[in-house]
C-alpha cells in the first residue's frame, strides 16, 4: 500500500451528530414561534430577530478573532441560537440599538468572558435580556398591541401583558374575578392575542417547537415538564386555597415567558444539569422561584430570574447528583 493507513483508538464509528446540527435543530424548532411573531407584529419582529441574530454572530466573531485571538466558532450555531432567544424575549418595539446592546452583553459578558461555548454558567440570552430589562425598564415593558404588519411602533399604544394586569390588579387590591374580566381568555393566550414579548406570546407555536425538539431528541422532557408541573401544582394549590387572590394554573402556564423559558432557555445544554435527576430538581427549582416572583415579588414575570438563579446551582447539582451506577444497588 502506498498510502498511509490511519490508526486510532476505538470506537471507529461516530453517530454523525454535531454541535452545529443540534443548534440547527433548535433554530428549526423556533421557526413556528417566529412565524407567529411575524404574523402578530409584522416587520418589527423580523427586524428585531434579524438584528439580534446577526449582531450576536458578529460580536462572537469579533471577540474571538480580535480579543481572544483564537479560532472563530460562529459556524457551530450557538451564537445564532442565543440571538434568536434574546430577540424572542424582547418586546417587538425594542429599538435596534438596544437589541445590539443586549446582544453584546449576551455574547460578550454572558458567554465569551467565561471562555466561550461550554464554559458559561449562565444562559447568555437571559443575561442579555435581564441586562436590558434592568437598564431600560420603560422600553422593555411597553408591549405593542399585536396587529400584524400594521403594528405601530411610533404611537405608544401598548397593551399590558396578562401577568401585568394581574399584578397591577392585585396591587390596587381588586378582586380576582374583576381582574379576570380584563384578561384575555385562555384560548387567546394560547394563540398569542395579548401583549408580550415577540416570541413568547403564542403558546401553541412554542409547544410545536417543543414537540420537534423531543422527536429529534435534542432535549429530554425532564426540565420543561418538571418546570411546568411545578408551576401548575404550586399555582393550583394557591388557587384552590384562595381563588379570589390567585389566578388559575392554566393562566399561569400559558402566559408570560414561561413556555419559551422552560422549553428553550432552561434546557440550554451548557447551563443545565447533566443527569435526569438533576434536571428534575433544576426544573422544580425554576418552577417554584417563578411562581414566588410572580405572586409575591415586585416583577410580574419571574422565569428569567428563576432560570438564572437555578443556573448558579447547576455545578452544585452536577457534583451531588450522580446517575445511578450500574451494579450500585447490590454494593450498598
Amino acid at each position, binding site marked *: 500500500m502506498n498510502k*498511509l*493507513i*490511519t*490508526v*486510532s*483508538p476505538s470506537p471507529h464509528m461516530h453517530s454523525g451528530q454535531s454541535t452545529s446540527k443540534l443548534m440547527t435543530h433548535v433554530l428549526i424548532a423556533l421557526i413556528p414561534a417566529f412565524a407567529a411573531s411575524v404574523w402578530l407584529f409584522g416587520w418589527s419582529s423580523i427586524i428585531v430577530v434579524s438584528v439580534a441574530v446577526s449582531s450576536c454572530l458578529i460580536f462572537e466573531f469579533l471577540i474571538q478573532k480580535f480579543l481572544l485571538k483564537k479560532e472563530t466558532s460562529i459556524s457551530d450555531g450557538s451564537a445564532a441560537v442565543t440571538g434568536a432567544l434574546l430577540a424572542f424575549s424582547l418586546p417587538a418595539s425594542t429599538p435596534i440599538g438596544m437589541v445590539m446592546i443586549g446582544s453584546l452583553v449576551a455574547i460578550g459578558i454572558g458567554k465569551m468572558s467565561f471562555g466561550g461555548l461550554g464554559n458559561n454558567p449562565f444562559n447568555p440570552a437571559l443575561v442579555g435580556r435581564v441586562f436590558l430589562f434592568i437598564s431600560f425598564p420603560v422600553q422593555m415593558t411597553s408591549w405593542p398591541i399585536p396587529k400584524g404588519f400594521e403594528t405601530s411602533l411610533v404611537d405608544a399604544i401598548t397593551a399590558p401583558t396578562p401577568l401585568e394586569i394581574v399584578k397591577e390588579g392585585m396591587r390596587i387590591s381588586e378582586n380576582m374575578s374583576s381582574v379576570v374580566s380584563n384578561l384575555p381568555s385562555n384560548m387567546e393566550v394560547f394563540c398569542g392575542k395579548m401583549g408580550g414579548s415577540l416570541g413568547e406570546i403564542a403558546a401553541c407555536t412554542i409547544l410545536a417547537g417543543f414537540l420537534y425538539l423531543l422527536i429529534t431528541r435534542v432535549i429530554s422532557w425532564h426540565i420543561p415538564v418538571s418546570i411546568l408541573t411545578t408551576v401548575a401544582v404550586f399555582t393550583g394549590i394557591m388557587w384552590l386555597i384562595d381563588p379570589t387572590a390567585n389566578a388559575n394554573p392554566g393562566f399561569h402556564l400559558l402566559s408570560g415567558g414561561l413556555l419559551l423559558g422552560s422549553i428553550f432557555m432552561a434546557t440550554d445544554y451548557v447551563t443545565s444539569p447533566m443527569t435526569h435527576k438533576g434536571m428534575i430538581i433544576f426544573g422544580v427549582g425554576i418552577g417554584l422561584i417563578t411562581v414566588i416572583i410572580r405572586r409575591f415579588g415586585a416583577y410580574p414575570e419571574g422565569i428569567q430570574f428563576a432560570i438564572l438563579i437555578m443556573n448558579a446551582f447547576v455545578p452544585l447539582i452536577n457534583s451531588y447528583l450522580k446517575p445511578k451506577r450500574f451494579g450500585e444497588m447490590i454494593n450498598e
Partner: protein
Amino acid sequence: MNSVLLFTIISLSLLGLVAALILYFFAQKFKVYEDPRIDQVEDALPGANCGGCGFPGCRNFAEACVKAETFDDLNCPVGGNEVMVTVSGILGKEAGETDPLVAVIRCNGSFENRPRTNVYDGAQNCTIVHNLYTGDTDCPFGCLGHGECVDACNFEAMYMDEKTGLPVIIDENCVACGACVEACPRDIIELRKRNKKDRKIFVSCINEDKGGIAKKYCSVACTGCTKCFKVCDYDAITMGNNLAFIDSEKCKLCRKCVVVCPTNAIHEINFPPRRVKEEEKVEETEGAEEISGKKTTN
C-alpha cells in the same frame, strides 16, 4: 437625628470591639506553633512548586529541610547548590554538593530520519498513543511527538519543533526538575550532568531492537555496533540491549565516539566546530554537527 447617629456609632463600635475580643481569644487559644525557620527556608526557595525535589511543593520541601538530620536526600534542582547553601545557612547544617543537571532528549527520529508508516488520528496524548500502538513510525521506542513533555514543563524550557516533530530543550531555562522525564511514557528524556558551556555528548537513541531492524525503522538509530565503546578511553560507554550508553559522570567530552558512530546517533551539542584535520572523518561528523548546530541556535 443626632441621637440616631450617635446610637449607630456606639453600637457598631461596641460590636466591633466584641468581635475583636472574640477573635483575639480564639487566635490565642488555638494557636498552632510553626517553626519560623520553615518560612525562612521557603522564602529562600525558588517558589515554583515544580515538584522536582520529590515533594508536592516548595512549602513541603521547606518542612522536610527543617525536619531533616542531613541534606543527603534533599536537593532543590531548580535553585541548585546556591539555594541549598542558603538553606543550610538558615538551618545551620551542611549542604551536600550536587552537580547541576540538564535534560536531554534521546531520540532523533525526525520526519526525515524516521519514515512514517501510518497516521495516528485520535486524542493527542503520548500515553494514549503509547498504550495503543507503536506510534506513527515502526520504532516502538522513539518519540511519539505529541508533546506531553512540553505540556509538563513549567519553566518554558521545551518546545516542539514543527519541522522535526520532536521536542527541543532550551538549556538556559531547564532546571532539571524532571517533570518531562516523568511525563514521557517512553522514558526518552534523561537528566544528565550539565557541563560547562552546556556541552553535551549523548547517544540520541533508546531503540533496543537489533541493529538491522533499528536501522530500518530510523536512519539515525543506535545499532549497538560497539564502535564507540571500543574507542572510548575513559570507560564512559557501556553496552546493553543493543544500545550504547554514555555515562555523563565519566565522559570527558573528548568527542572521539561522535566521530566513529556510523549512524550519527551520538550527538555533540554546543561544541566549537572541529578543525578539519582528518579528511576521511569529516564526512561522518557532518550530520552530527548539523544537528548540533540546529539545536544550539535555539
